[in-house]
């Protein structure tokens, strides 16, 4: 009788539950994850969608009415000389600094991978520029390049070269690239160093036996083996640096003229002047550039993998 009663309760319970145990687990998991997912959606998807909607509006709360202008903001961007110059320098900055960061990063990583005394200390010192906050570095370099007090300007002056870096459009762009390369090369180097440590010493020994010199070993063994990692880091640096703001802001305020203004700086300026519609359109353009570079990166990465 007791056993029958137990079975009856079990049967009743099974009948009342419409979900299996596995399904109930999924529901529980979904409920537990829901707050985090909702928070994430609220803080990323909502602003993203809102930005896209705003990009089709002329909206400055100080100057109503708020109105739908279709592609008007994007047409304005196409004819805005300051924005065009900012996009141009953003791309120069991103591709230029990433290229040099990778070149110097591989060189520094190769040096740090070789055996020498105080190697660990050298690896630590290498990271110092990367550890310095960008604004601090930018202000420091601004003084170094300063035409009146600058150490670099003074050094060049002693060599008979008088050049004011930060007020010449080309000089200011080069100066910002130099600081960016100086600042981020250590990070690239330490990442590539991790890849270099995975390259088997036996490959180099075999190459030496075959009569390969150091350059040939580097070109035929090291570089192909670290290429996937290099492409990944390169992509990361490209996308990461696209949103650069602090360096040109603290070093030149986008000048001289607007030669070193970047897209993120233009967005900030539009937000500061309450032009939320135009700032949103600029943000969408920036998103498209980031997306395009991301796609190029994925394709490049696959090609490298296929080639290997």
């Amino acid at each position, binding site marked *: 009788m007791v056993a029958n009663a137990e079975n009856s309760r079990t049967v009743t319970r099974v009948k009342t539950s419409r979900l299996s145990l596995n399904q109930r687990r999924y529901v529980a998991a979904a409920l537990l994850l829901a707050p985090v997912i909702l928070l994430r959606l609220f803080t990323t998807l909502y602003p993203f969608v809102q930005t896209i909607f705003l990009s089709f509006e002329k909206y400055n709360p100080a100057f109503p009415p708020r109105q739908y202008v279709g592609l008007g903001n994007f047409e304005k961007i196409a004819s805005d000389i300051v924005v065009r110059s900012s996009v141009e320098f953003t791309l120069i900055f991103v591709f230029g600094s990433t290229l040099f960061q990778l070149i110097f990063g591989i060189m520094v990583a190769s040096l740090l991978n070789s055996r020498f005394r105080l190697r660990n200390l050298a690896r630590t010192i290498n990271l110092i520029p990367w550890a310095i906050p960008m604004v601090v570095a930018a202000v420091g370099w601004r003084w170094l390049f*300063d035409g*009146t007090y600058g150490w670099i300007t003074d050094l060049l002056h002693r060599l008979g070269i008088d050049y004011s870096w930060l007020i010449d459009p080309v000089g200011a762009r080069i100066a910002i690239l130099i600081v960016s390369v100086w600042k981020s090369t250590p990070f690239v180097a330490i990442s590539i160093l991790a890849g270099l440590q995975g390259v088997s010493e036996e490959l180099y020994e075999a190459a030496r036996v075959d009569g390969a010199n150091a350059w040939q070993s580097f070109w035929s063994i090291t570089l192909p083996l670290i290429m996937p990692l290099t492409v990944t880091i390169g992509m990361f640096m490209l996308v990461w640096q696209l949103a650069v703001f602090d360096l040109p802001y603290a070093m030149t*305020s986008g000048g*001289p003229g607007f030669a070193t203004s970047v897209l993120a700086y233009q967005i900030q300026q539009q*937000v500061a*002047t309450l032009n939320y519609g135009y700032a949103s359109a600029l943000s969408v353009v920036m998103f498209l550039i980031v997306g395009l570079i991301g796609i190029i990166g994925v394709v490049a990465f696959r090609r490298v993998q296929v080639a290997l």
Partner: protein
Amino acid sequence: MSVKVSRREFLKTSGLAAAAVATSKFPMPGIIHRRQLNTVVLKIQSFAHDAIKAVLPDFEAATGLTVQLEPGLSSGPEHMQEVSTAYAAGDSPWDVVSDPDEGTVAFARAGWLMPLDDVIPQETLDDFPQGMRDAFPIWHGFEGALYRVPHEFAVGYFFYRKDLLGEPPKTWEEVAEIGMQVTDAANGVWATTDAIIRGGLTWVYVAYLASQTGGNVFEMDAGTAHAAHFLYDMLNVYKIMPPDALNMNYDQQNQLYMSDKVMFMRQWPFFQSVAEGNTEWFSPEKVAIALPPAGPAGTGSWWGGWGFSVPALAPNPDGAKELIKFLTSNEVAPKLAQGQSWFIMPRTSILNAMAGTGNPIVDAMGLYAENNVIKPRPFHARAAEAQYAVDDAMLQYLTKQATLQEALAFGKQLLADLSA
């Protein structure tokens, strides 16, 4: 002791807790602000805090309110960005805010400020000179309502090294002539300098020069062209100004002057306090103030400044109104001015209180008023954006990326786009 909780119980409890939190008055930041009715939060630059703290005990004793001082940003555009972010989000952590001219123009139009017409007594308004009151509807109000009460009267003063020059240059021609005599570029000594960096400072200096040519930088007119041309010549023809002035901020400008590398310069009144604070270097002859050198339209310098406003969403609007009434009153304004030169204005109460004290800014204010130096700040309804437009256009010319005509045409286009 361990307590076993089944999955069902856990989910039930979690759901109930979440529902309780959602339906209760969860202390969101905005609500926290609105609960602190005994506190009034004033956002103003840190260098003014000491002067304000000195007068607050009277206010706190009389009202029972506590005033909390929050630091503000010195740069108008940066301040606008910080404050507008909160306002646009429908919130304000502050009850009273010190706003720049361009900020008030935008915020009043956006409906983010509270009208102050019924707050400020007539005797306080009457204490301001007529010239300042004339500017109230333009820079401090909108559609007939007053949204800000000025606490600063910022004029670009012409500081010069009396100990080295004896007499200052009185005209643009003398600026060039004396400038070339005293400049020693090889040793980093320049006749003059200014902070002309992009981002809201270029237009300040061009507008200063344009006030001496009768020009309006927001019109990109002949006077603006003349001013820009003279600036270009100072940099490139007379070579009496360091080329890096184009990338200089106020700190660098002041530093250059106090390093004995500059003979004369335009600067805001706050430099007087900065110079006096550099006790090892300072002497009155090193920061003498003269009339600005006269250009084609005579001498001139425009005035603007910061003032107190109350955000429309101030958590404690009543306390805010009491505080703003107190700080701008005829009794307290002179005390603030005596505590910090930033608060010195040509108000009757302040001038009476500081008469005969030998304060160089008060004396200079009188000198400038007597000689009709002070001109109104050029107005543009989209002031912040218009200033950036002037920066971008003028710097194209000053950094030799465009001719003067091209730069003026570019500037006109940028300004026209603002109205579109």
